[in-house]
């Protein structure tokens, strides 16, 4: 009994009240956070040690332990790890811990109630599925971690504290907000949780308004901008959900069924989950920049760059007066355009270029106005024999190959000369292009012969 009790108190830092799994890490933390000399970043071992170092080396007096709580900044007290903590503080800490277990348990209960609330069917208290990290033993609710300032890089250990979030009903969708379009292929919703590791648990739809989450950390999220100062447990999540949540409680904001609480760390931001349909109807969400002195270089709307780009008039093939036909085909255009970097030319030998044209056929038609190809056709032009060969100057003066180049016949490219900048000019700028090397061929042996272009047709 007594042993068990002892196990429950984890090593904690007197200066900042933070808990650690291991005293070694606690000592590392203290050295890095509290015993580091502000002038020369030397890591000392204790508070008095730091004070003496500063006095002797830098002729400075230090009156407070850096990064400590206001009431715990006494530099005179010699604390190393868990050693030297004043008795009354030890007791106080233990008492607080005991006190917090209760609320933590209660929280679990209310979760269950919530999840039963709007659920279709299924056992209450879904086990945290695969993604959820199991909370470390003796771990109590998040309140303990709130005031703490864990250092940034310790991502690994921090997963622990995030663990309990796995229990949180992930969607705080509006009342009755359930099931957008029927998600036919997702077997998830009907499967009982826990059957197989991969079945997502039903999304419990809570009747709570989105802005009143169960969880302190979620509260932080919804309050958004304070996050920066509060420094929550996981830096990666510290920027709050900057994607504005939809109107609270809007009935058109269904929770996403089938997206169960698989990921422990993910729920905090689930406020912003919408269904696509409602997304389209609404104006896209906005991305707010993290803080005053940083800026995300991205358009304000929370849509992908490509979607935004597709809205530009030049891509709107129905718009009158848009010169859409001009480049007959991306690839041919590629071959014809003057090189942007003087002298660096992509040259396709005539023969090859001819077959280029052939294979560029689909793309030519694709570029035509108004969907000659039904929307969404995949046009993947993979051309092992039609080469987009980035010929450098060396190459262009070489005899032009007329036959289909066999691996042996390809003059080896001067590898040393392959370093950038070696531009292949003018990739089609009208569509999204992804370049991939052809998987089936070894690029190195065959040189630059197997660029496979996938071209995505966009319908407007």
């Amino acid at each position: 009994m007594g042993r068990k009790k002892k196990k429950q108190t984890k090593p904690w830092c007197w200066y900042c009240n933070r808990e650690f799994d291991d005293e070694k890490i606690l000592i590392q933390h203290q050295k890095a956070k509290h015993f580091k000399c502000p002038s020369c970043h030397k890591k000392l071992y204790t508070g008095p040690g730091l004070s003496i170092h500063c006095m002797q080396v830098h002729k400075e007096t230090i009156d407070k332990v850096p990064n400590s709580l206001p009431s715990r900044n006494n530099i005179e007290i010699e604390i190393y790890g868990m050693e030297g903590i004043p008795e009354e503080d030890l007791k106080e800490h233990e008492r607080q811990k005991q006190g917090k277990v209760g609320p933590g348990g209660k929280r679990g209960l209310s979760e269950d109630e919530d999840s039963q609330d709007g659920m279709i069917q299924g056992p209450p208290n879904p086990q945290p599925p695969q993604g959820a990290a199991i909370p470390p033993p003796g771990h109590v609710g998040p309140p303990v971690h709130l005031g703490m300032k864990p250092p940034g890089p310790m991502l690994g250990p921090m997963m622990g504290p995030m663990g309990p979030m796995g229990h949180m009903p992930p969607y705080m969708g509006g009342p009755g907000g359930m099931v957008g379009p029927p998600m036919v292929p997702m077997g998830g919703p009907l499967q009982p949780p826990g059957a197989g590791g991969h079945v997502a648990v039903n999304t419990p739809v809570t009747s709570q308004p989105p802005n009143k989450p169960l969880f302190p950390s979620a509260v932080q999220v919804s309050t958004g901008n304070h996050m920066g100062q509060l420094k929550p447990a996981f830096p990666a999540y510290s920027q709050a959900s900057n994607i504005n949540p939809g109107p609270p409680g809007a009935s058109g904001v269904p929770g996403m069924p089938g997206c169960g609480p698989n990921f422990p760390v993910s729920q905090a931001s689930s406020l912003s989950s919408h269904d696509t349909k409602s997304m389209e109807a609404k104006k896209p969400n906005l991305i707010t920049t993290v803080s005053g002195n940083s800026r995300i270089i991205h358009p304000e709307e929370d849509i992908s760059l490509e979607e935004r780009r597709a809205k530009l008039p030049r891509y709107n093939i129905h718009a009158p007066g848009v010169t859409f036909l001009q480049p007959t085909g991306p690839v041919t255009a590629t071959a014809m355009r003057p090189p942007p970097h003087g002298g660096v030319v992509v040259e396709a030998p005539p023969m090859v270029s001819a077959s280029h044209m052939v294979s560029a056929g689909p793309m030519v038609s694709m570029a035509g106005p108004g969907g000659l190809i039904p929307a969404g056709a995949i046009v993947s032009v993979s051309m092992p024999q039609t080469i987009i060969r980035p010929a450098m100057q060396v190459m262009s003066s070489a005899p032009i190959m007329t036959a289909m180049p066999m691996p042996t016949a390809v003059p080896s490219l001067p590898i040393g000369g392959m370093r950038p900048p070696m531009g292949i000019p003018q990739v089609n700028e009208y569509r999204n292009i992804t370049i991939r090397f052809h998987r089936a061929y070894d690029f190195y042996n065959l040189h630059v012969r197997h660029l496979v272009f996938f071209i995505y047709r966009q319908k407007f």
Partner: protein
Amino acid sequence: MFDLNTSSETTVGTHDAAIRCVEYCPEVNLVITGSWDTNVKLWDPRGPREAGSFQQPNKVYTIGLCGERVVVGTANRKVMVWDLRNMGFAQQKRESSLKFQTRCIRCFPNKQGYVVSSIEGRVAVEYLDPSPEVQKKKYAFKCHRLKEDGIEKIFPVNAISFHNGYNTFATGGSDGFVNIWDGFNKKRLCQFHRYPTSISSLSFSNDGNMLAISCSYLYEQEIKPIPENCIFIRKVTDQETKPK
């Protein structure tokens, strides 16, 4: 579908909105397309027909292939893991551990996990194995940020490509930089010189000796004149790609 042998072209099928990504899975011989119409469709290259259509939680933004598994990243930061051999249900439904819009997902060649990048200069390394011990290893880091005049500019990370041999990966951002990372040791291996504009796509060659870098303005912000599009093919050395 374009048949190289006969130079003929067939339309296999359509999506209701623009197709954002196309992948080919050699393990099961399927072409996979993901579209803004929120569907992922499978296509059998042997016959001109659709092999299946699978609704995703939102518009498909990116697809990563992991052997027979497909990791689909959609709008609203959803991540779905499907098994191509059993498409009856999504194997895993996750939310991206990054706070901002998912930009790109690529899988480790050793099939252990995948890497997600977001528009907010951040990359997460995630593992597919749902067991807590493995999940503990996941992490995220900041990258593709520039400090200019006291303001930190945070750029979207548009492209990821894995080195097949070393399981290291390159990321390309709208800052015009390409970085190569060792995801297992949490180390940056190298950074290339700055490219003229946003890196829109990256691809390592099969043997990992070359890296193709496409550079294209993506309309992140107003720039005039619009920079030229270009592709760079760069030979990369072991020193740049091999874990140290």
